[in-house]
């Protein structure tokens, strides 16, 4: 009787340790699966010092949307703006608000691609006055996008009167690639550039219910871009 009890306890211990090992493996897989790699490049002229924003000055982050094959996502622009606002405690003008106030001069068709064109836009008194009223001194243009570069595996789901479920394994690689250019529109000069490339692999494992392990590629790119841009400004 005592022997039986001991064997039962051993069995329970064994199941417990197996479950623990499985849980640890799943956690490790989840952490490993969601890892991302970020590469940041920065360019600034040797003479360019940290930018100081006065109390009445603000900046705006704008996405490039003139190309046919991609356009910079508005939620990434908003994410970078929030990050800069938190890190530097500076006023970052909302992108959509800026576009509406200066409509139609910053639409995909009309937005200035180069500083020379921006200078010509600023010769228009109405545009210059509106930008001055918003207190915008620096413009950060972000160009790029996030896309799926590769995918493999297969996953299938079935539904029947008796029930349903999924089975399979799928993985996909995503790459976020963005470049930001900082313009000082008072001095009409470029202050620097930041390039961020983030890649990561996401997985989906399905045994009855699908369990996704998603690599947060775009938010990592946002964090990298926000942190690096903040080094251009005073306070870092």
């Amino acid at each position, binding site marked *: 009787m005592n022997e039986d009890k001991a064997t039962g306890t051993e069995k329970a211990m064994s199941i417990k340790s197996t479950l623990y090992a499985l849980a640890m493996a799943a956690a490790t897989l989840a952490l490993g699966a969601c890892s991302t790699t970020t590469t940041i490049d920065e360019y600034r002229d040797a003479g360019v010092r940290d930018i100081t924003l006065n109390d009445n000055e603000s900046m705006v982050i704008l996405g490039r949307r003139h190309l046919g094959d*991609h356009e910079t996502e508005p939620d990434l622009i908003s994410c970078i703006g929030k990050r800069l606002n938190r890190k530097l405690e500076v006023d970052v003008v909302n992108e959509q608000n800026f576009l509406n*106030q200066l409509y*139609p*001069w910053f639409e*995909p*068709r009309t937005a200035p691609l*180069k500083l020379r*064109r921006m200078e010509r836009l600023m010769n228009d008194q109405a545009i210059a006055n509106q930008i001055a009223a918003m207190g915008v001194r620096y413009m950060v243009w972000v160009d790029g*996008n996030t896309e799926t570069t590769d995918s493999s595996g297969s996953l299938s789901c079935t539904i029947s009167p008796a029930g349903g479920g999924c089975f399979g394994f799928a993985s996909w690689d995503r790459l976020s690639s963005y470049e930001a250019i900082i313009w000082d529109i008072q001095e009409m000069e470029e202050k620097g550039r930041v390039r961020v490339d983030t890649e990561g692999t996401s997985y989906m494992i399905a045994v009855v219910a699908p369990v996704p392990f998603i690599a947060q590629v775009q938010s990592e790119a946002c964090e990298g871009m926000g942190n690096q841009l903040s080094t251009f400004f005073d306070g870092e």
Partner: protein
Amino acid sequence: MATKTHKNWLVPLFAASALLLSACSTNVTVTGDYPSPLAKPIPYDVGIVFDDAFKDYVFTRDNIEIKLGDAQTRMYSNLFSGMFANSTLLESREAATPDIDLVIVPNVEEIQIATPKDNRLKVYEVWIKYNMQVYDGDGSSIADWLMTCYGKTPTATLKSSARSLNLASVVALRDAGARMTTGFVRVPEVQGWLIRQAARKRQQPAPATSDTPAASEPQTQTTVEGNHERG
């Protein structure tokens, strides 16, 4: 009795079929922000005619339906109110009063859309071709300007095809506003009309009661309004 039972079955069957069919279709009523343009107004009074076909315009293709009429009417109303010194909504071209210098009648010539299934780019695209009919105050035709505009969504996955098509349509409408603001005075026929008007006003003698010769100043700027170029 058997027939009655049959009928009882038909109602839920039809309801289920209708539900399934509607689940596959995409219905969009376009909504968005259409601000007034930030531009020096062209110093003329303009009358705008939105006919019923324009105001109630609905695009349909396969199972996709885009109600564009209300949105484009709002966009052009805001646009023209900022683009010209004065803009008046007219019931028809014939309703133009003598103080109106130009009458503009926008018409939708063609709309094309592309979904990720069509373009394999993971974006939704909308093209709109407008025919902007421009008449002078006397009702004579000045120009038939075919103006195309384009809008697309970012490659990121959006929640639904209805939301994506709305976004692409809003971008296309805003593009139409940008195209109109920057391109209207560059249409050769419109440019010719503006030059003729400026010359006519210059030739008119200054009013006898006027003490200053500044009355004809605004016309000298009419041909350069909105002439920003991409760079």
